[in-house]
């Protein structure tokens, strides 16, 4: 599929108008495996990849897709029909790369055969007319045939040529590695594709938010979200556990241009390979996952989890524990939701804001001015009404659908938002009970991922790189030497036009011509 010189390319235009079915198939196959088709398919593939960067993709950015559907429901439906939110698994994208790989296989397999034969056979006869080649030189000498050919043979062998010496001539060729590299490159690409396909099938990755003090046990129920490959089997999950002992963040307080910039995130964890095994401690950082048998654990996010307790009007605790708040800006102004379906006298929902280092704006609203909890404040808006949790349908724990609910604190409700500092207990309006801000914890978002083929993909990719490098740098050349009465002639041909050929021939002639025979 690549670098084949023009002269070797089979003529793709059939001569006969009467083809028949077999003929047509052969013709189609030849078209498909031609370099031109490969070229067109490559350009098509490049063009087809573009929409995937313009529209959010379900694989990379599922939230983006949801937002797109909310913003432009009609257009989104049409785009979805064209699989523009799943470009890289779409029918049309797959069709192009499958055709490309079929074309590739159809091209490199026969080429391998040809190359194998060429490697095992000797360089061919010396062409009758050497003057037509780009590098050519004729030199007069009275040296013997043996002397000239001996010298030529020695020089060519030294330069790595394979050669055949005949009665009064030598044919030599070098640079077989060029085609070898080229074929290795193309086969390695097939290897990458196969390894990626199989590896993807057996891979899985899941997400879990872990608050300080919590333990993750590797089974399906422990994941917040889980994406398995098509061949995934639950028995693949190795029974390890990971406990988040402590989460630390270093923010810059020293450099004026950099205040509040995160310098380091550290998740201190203890992991166990089975229930009764000894725990071993480790630190997970952004670029330093924890490697466990059968999966790696990655740090992908972090935030605050204020510990909150709600007590209802009857004095019953309706909620108590850490609540995961999602950071909204670089200073960790964070948003959290608590739903209290069992609170008496009536159920309500809480939309809460957390400010690690609070500052009041002129408008009266709060914001956070530094990401560490120097002066933390928790502020809550309350919504009374049916939370819709009783019908059992899955719902997002990070959002509160306020439609149909009655806001009783914060915003335009007429009652101020409930504000708390750490350790404070505040009575809720409308006799809803009370709330306590018990303390503050941090949480880590962890990704647990496994792909058995990674090493294979890397190996094939490096093989492809090596093959590409060799095929683009090793020159392929042929040299012929012919002795005749009173002199000798040398010709050279390169695979691609090589500007150095004439110089090469000059140097070669200088090397083999006997000193006394050279013209002044």
């Amino acid at each position: 599929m690549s670098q084949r010189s023009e002269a070797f390319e089979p003529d793709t235009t059939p001569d006969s108008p009467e083809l028949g079915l077999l003929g047509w198939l052969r013709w189609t196959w030849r078209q498909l495996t031609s370099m031109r088709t490969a070229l067109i398919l490559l350009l098509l593939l490049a063009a087809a990849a573009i929409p995937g960067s313009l529209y959010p993709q379900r694989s990379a950015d599922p939230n983006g897709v949801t937002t797109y559907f909310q913003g432009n429901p009609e257009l989104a439906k049409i785009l979805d029909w064209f699989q523009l939110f799943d470009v890289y698994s779409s029918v049309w994208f797959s069709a192009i790369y499958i055709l490309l790989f079929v074309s590739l296989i159809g091209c490199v397999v026969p080429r391998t055969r040809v190359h194998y034969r060429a490697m095992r056979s000797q360089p061919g006869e010396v062409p009758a007319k050497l003057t037509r080649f780009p590098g050519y030189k004729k030199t007069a000498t009275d040296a013997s045939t043996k002397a000239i050919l001996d010298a030529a043979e020695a020089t060519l062998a030294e330069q790595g040529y394979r050669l055949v010496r005949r009665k009064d001539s030598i044919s030599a060729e070098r640079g077989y590695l060029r085609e070898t590299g080229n074929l290795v490159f193309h086969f390695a690409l097939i290897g990458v594709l196969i390894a990626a396909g199989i590896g993807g099938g057996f891979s899985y990755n899941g997400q879990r938010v872990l608050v300080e003090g919590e333990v993750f046990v590797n089974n399906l129920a422990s994941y917040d979200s889980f994406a398995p490959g098509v061949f995934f089997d639950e028995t693949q999950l190795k029974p390890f556990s990971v406990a988040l002992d402590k989460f630390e963040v270093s923010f810059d307080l020293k450099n004026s241009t950099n205040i509040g910039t995160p310098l380091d995130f550290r998740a201190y964890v203890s992991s166990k390979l089975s229930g009764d095994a000894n725990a071993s401690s480790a630190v997970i950082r952004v670029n330093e996952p924890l490697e466990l048998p059968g999966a790696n654990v990655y740090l992908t996010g972090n935030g605050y989890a204020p510990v909150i307790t709600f007590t209802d009007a009857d004095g019953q605790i309706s909620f108590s524990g850490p609540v995961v708040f999602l950071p909204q800006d670089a200073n960790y102004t964070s948003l959290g939701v608590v739903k209290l379906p069992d609170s008496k006298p009536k159920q309500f929902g809480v939309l809460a804001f957390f400010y690690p280092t609070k500052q009041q704006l002129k408008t009266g609203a709060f914001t956070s001015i530094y990401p560490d909890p120097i002066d933390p404040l928790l502020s809550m808006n309350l919504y009374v009404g049916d939370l819709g949790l009783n019908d059992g349908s899955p719902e997002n724990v990070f959002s509160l659908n306020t439609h149909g609910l009655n806001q009783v604190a914060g915003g335009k409700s007429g009652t101020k938002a409930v504000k708390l500092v750490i350790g404070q207990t505040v009575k809720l309006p409308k006799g809803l009970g009370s709330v306590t801000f018990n303390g503050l914890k941090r949480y880590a978002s962890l990704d647990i991922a496994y792909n058995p083929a990674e090493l294979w993909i890397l190996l094939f990719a490096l093989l492809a790189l090596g093959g590409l490098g060799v095929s683009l740098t090793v020159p392929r050349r042929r040299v012929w030497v012919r002795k005749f009465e009173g002199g000798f002639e040398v010709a050279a041909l390169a695979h691609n036009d090589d500007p150095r050929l004439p110089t090469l021939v000059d140097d070669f002639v200088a090397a083999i011509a006997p000193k006394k025979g050279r013209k002044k």
Partner: protein
Amino acid sequence: MTSVSLNLPLAQLSLVAVFAAMAIYTLSFLVFVWHLTSIASEDKAASAKSANLQKFGYGLLVLAVFVHGIGVVTRGIAASRVPWANMYEFSVSGSFILVAIFVFAWRVRDIRIIATFVTGFALLVLGTATNIFYVQVKTLMPALQSYWLVIHVTVAVLATAFFNIAAALSVAYLLKTSAYVEKSQSKVVGFARRVLAAFPEQQRLERLQVRFNSIGLVLWSFTLIAGAIWAQRAWHRYWGWDTKEVWTFIIWTLYAGYFHATSTRGWTGKRAAWLSLVGFTAIIFNFTIVNLFFKGLHVYSGL
């Protein structure tokens, strides 16, 4: 990394060095333009002097790249890390490497003629960097704290530089083979024709183009692999069709297409040269539009 000291005065010095380098590049650029006009001149005396002009321009270029290098190094020392963590730094370091490679490639006589293009392009990049992309020196966000930042980005910059020089050669090739340039009666085009006559012959331009693009493609493939290894460490997957990954793939595919074109009947020459330009346009698009306006994981423009 729990604490870093940024050296702000040194960062200021770095900016001064970059501005000084821009001034010298401007002079060098003007001298190279003058050189081009003088070789096109019908006046024999002016034409004879042109070789000296080119030498003078090269001297200025070496000086500029030296001062530019000081700007790059001091920025790195000021930040206690490699100086390519945001678009400003990427532009300044990238244009430095481009010109440095060109200064080394000066040994290839036929390359010298595109000096005007290379200095002009470096100036354009530096102008954009200092005016639009400039950010004060900052620490590395945790996601970028990896030795892969050194490997992945260095090789990407190198690849870009080689593609860039190849693109300049493609432009020269296309102008030289253009029927319009050859036939037009206009005075301006006539002048351009005389300038182009000083350029290497078509075949030579084509071969140089293939050479630079092939080095570029090998480096770009390495960039892609190194990026995948880093992504596996940082984001739990080696490939996830993030916008930046998509464009790296597109660029790779375009150049793969280019190399097939160079050995496909009917596609060598002009069409291949156009493909080389399309590939380079995609690189520029990837660096500017994709960085600034596309949503993705590679958020490091610093703007």
